[in-house]
């Protein structure tokens, strides 16, 4: 699913308005009836805040609390301080999940973004044709279906008798065929390909939408100057797409780090531990192994990782916001 990012000012007008809200509104009397803003505002925001506090903030604090204990979910708990965190970083199985998540970023992020850029650049000129309009709908299908369905579909395609192997044998590559999701070496890339399929359409369309905002006169000028398509791409297209690229990377990186559905349904983390991701490991540790403390520590590490990845991307993408 499309995960939101932190972009608050999409255009100069909004940015200017944002500036005005920064000024403290001390013009009005404390108990001013004119705005009634103070308390009415809180009344309006209260339900949302309540729902958020009860079902998000409280569990968030509790996760941090649980991570400092050893608890099986039923009986009493024992204080262990930072032991769980040490375990997360030293146990090869647990730390391996974090490494796997980063490896998945290559597939979930790099492939859709790079491929999306290339494809969007190529089809930019026919972006308003009827074929492109049909394509908009079709390319969004992977974003609309639940990730579980994508996982089930692709598990079947990647099976040893599945379509992928059938296609490979058509082009005489029989030696390469195998059960992609069951092989130690190819399981993680195979899961990565599923994610890439889900996210490619979204990235392509986002980048295409960004490209259509670029003034065509720039391209005309470059054309007249004799620039080829490659020059055009690097000098005109890429720089203007900073924000969109930032969004694509953010959405895909978060999808890779927080992946659960696809792995749960296709490999359950196997074979061995090669496709185990933090999200799934948290689930197993908490509900199957009854190690709530370890699960919570891993959860905290995961959330920190997501922030650590998203914030720099956001900062870089908006560096030159005019």
């Amino acid at each position, binding site marked *: 699913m499309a995960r939101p990012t*932190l972009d*608050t*000012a999409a255009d100069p007008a909004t*940015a*200017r308005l*944002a*500036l005005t809200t*920064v000024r403290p509104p001390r013009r009005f009397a404390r108990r001013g009836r004119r705005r009634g803003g103070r308390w009415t505002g809180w009344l309006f925001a209260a339900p949302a805040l309540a729902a958020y506090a009860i079902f998000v903030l409280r569990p*968030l*604090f*509790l996760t*941090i*609390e*649980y991570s*400092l*204990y050893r*608890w*099986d*979910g*039923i*009986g*009493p*708990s*024992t*204080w262990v301080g930072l032991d769980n965190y040490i375990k997360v970083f030293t146990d090869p199985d647990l730390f391996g999940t974090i490494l796997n998540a980063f490896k998945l970023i290559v597939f979930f992020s790099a492939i859709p973004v790079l491929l999306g850029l290339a494809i969007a650049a190529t089809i930019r000129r026919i972006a308003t044709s009827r074929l492109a309009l049909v394509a908009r709908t079709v390319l969004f299908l992977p974003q609309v279906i639940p990730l579980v369905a994508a996982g089930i579909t692709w598990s079947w395609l990647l*099976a*040893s008798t599945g379509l992928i192997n059938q296609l490979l044998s058509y082009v005489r590559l029989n030696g390469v065929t*195998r*059960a992609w*999701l*069951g*092989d*130690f070496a190819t399981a993680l890339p195979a899961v990565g390909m599923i994610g890439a399929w889900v996210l490619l359409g979204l990235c392509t369309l986002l980048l295409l939408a960004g490209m259509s905002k670029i003034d065509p006169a720039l391209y005309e000028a470059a054309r007249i100057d004799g620039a080829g398509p490659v020059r055009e791409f690097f000098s005109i297209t890429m720089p203007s797409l900073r924000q969109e690229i930032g969004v694509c990377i953010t959405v895909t990186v978060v999808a890779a780090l927080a992946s659960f559905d696809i792995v749960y349904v296709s*490999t*359950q*983390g*196997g*074979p*061995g*531990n090669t496709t185990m991701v933090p999200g799934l490991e948290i689930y*197993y540790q908490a*509900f*199957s*192994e*009854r190690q*709530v403390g370890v699960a919570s520590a891993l959860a905290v590490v995961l959330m920190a990782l997501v*922030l650590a990845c998203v*914030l720099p991307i*956001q*900062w870089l993408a*908006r560096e030159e*916001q*005019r």
Partner: protein
Amino acid sequence: MSRPSTLSRRGFLGLGGGVGVAAALGAAGCGGPGSDKPDAATASTALAAAPSIGTAPVTMKAYFETGFPMPKALTDEFTRQYPNVKWDIREDQFAVITQNAPRVLADDPPDLMRLPQVSELVKNGLLKNLDGYAQAFGWDKWPASQLEQLRVGPGGRPRGEGSLYAMGLNFSMTGIFYNKKLAAQIGMTAPPATLDELDDLLAKAKRAGITPIVQFNGGATGGFAFPLQNLMASYGPPGPINDWIFQKPGASIDTPANLKATEHLDRWIKAGYFDKDANAMDYAKMMSKFIAGGCLLMFNGDWESGTLDKQMPGNAGFFLMPPAERGGKRAAMSAPLTVGISAKAKNADYAAFFLNWVASNQRAREIAVDVGGSHPMGPPDAYMPPVKEGSVTAATLAAGAQIAQDNGAMDFIANATGSIYAKSWTPQLQKLFAGQQDPKALLKAVQSDYESQVGS
């Protein structure tokens, strides 16, 4: 120009710091989560009389394993005989049931649940103590070996003695199924009597272009544990293996006999005797491949005898794993099809009645043999339905008698602890098949996982 990003960043760090401080304060201030009083294993309640089904309508909640028709056939028959009892059955795959067991038993308790392994569940007080029912229904008068694996000592270990915490729907027997047609093709006239003869058979099959063994090893369930344990029993006595499974103090799986067994399995893998897709194959795929007739042998249990008799009539055979030395004692995995009653079950009495009915009712016993293929529980002189001559069911039942004679019944090494299968055996066996692990290191790794799981 406006830089809301800077604002956000500072805000984040501030908020993050605030959260951290609050959490630390909160953690230091109050006690940890969870109750203070540990849940003791439930004590047994003596029953005045054996419970019975009344006439009031009742809906029983059951959680069974998918792909096995016998429990459903039994519940259907039960409803036929007692129409006021309806069943709400949930099915899931073996690995998922194992994962869900602690959570489901504690928070959404079914009346009856298929349980692969009970030690941790008993330790956490999640299963009902069945001693009272055993006394009321007379289960404690059955041959002790039937209920041995279902008994757990106080605190969850060791198994094999103590109060009864689960029952079995029947008693299974495992070994090697073979395709009679393909066997005749390579000249197998009688089941192999020694391990060497079995090796010869596998080599002959490979030369003839037949896949020697189809065995599942994929997903969260490493089916190579079957041939491995069979080999362990060929090389050494079943006693130490059972001790390890039952969590007796000081037991170890890393023994010289077991090492020889693992090396033997490794030789089979390297010789290419297994179907090359083993690491991606799940149980159902293995069954379907064997039934389709593409391979000679399959290590499995008699719960499939009924299915094989129906889908490959007259073409499926069965023999027990041969010993290493000629004339040696035979051993095989043989365990009850474990089901337990949740400690918080609503209809525990009815569930116990059902379990007794399965073992004593004539029609139920017929279903156990015809659909389930295995021997029902109960006293040795109880009604046994007639079995067709030459069917694989007859072969497995006969094998059961031999194992009883040789005292060679073992539980499954996958059942030693709640997570030894998913977290230890399966990944290690998958690595062994992929050539990424060697036999010595495999046994050491499993033993060390076992010790950390049992010690906790």
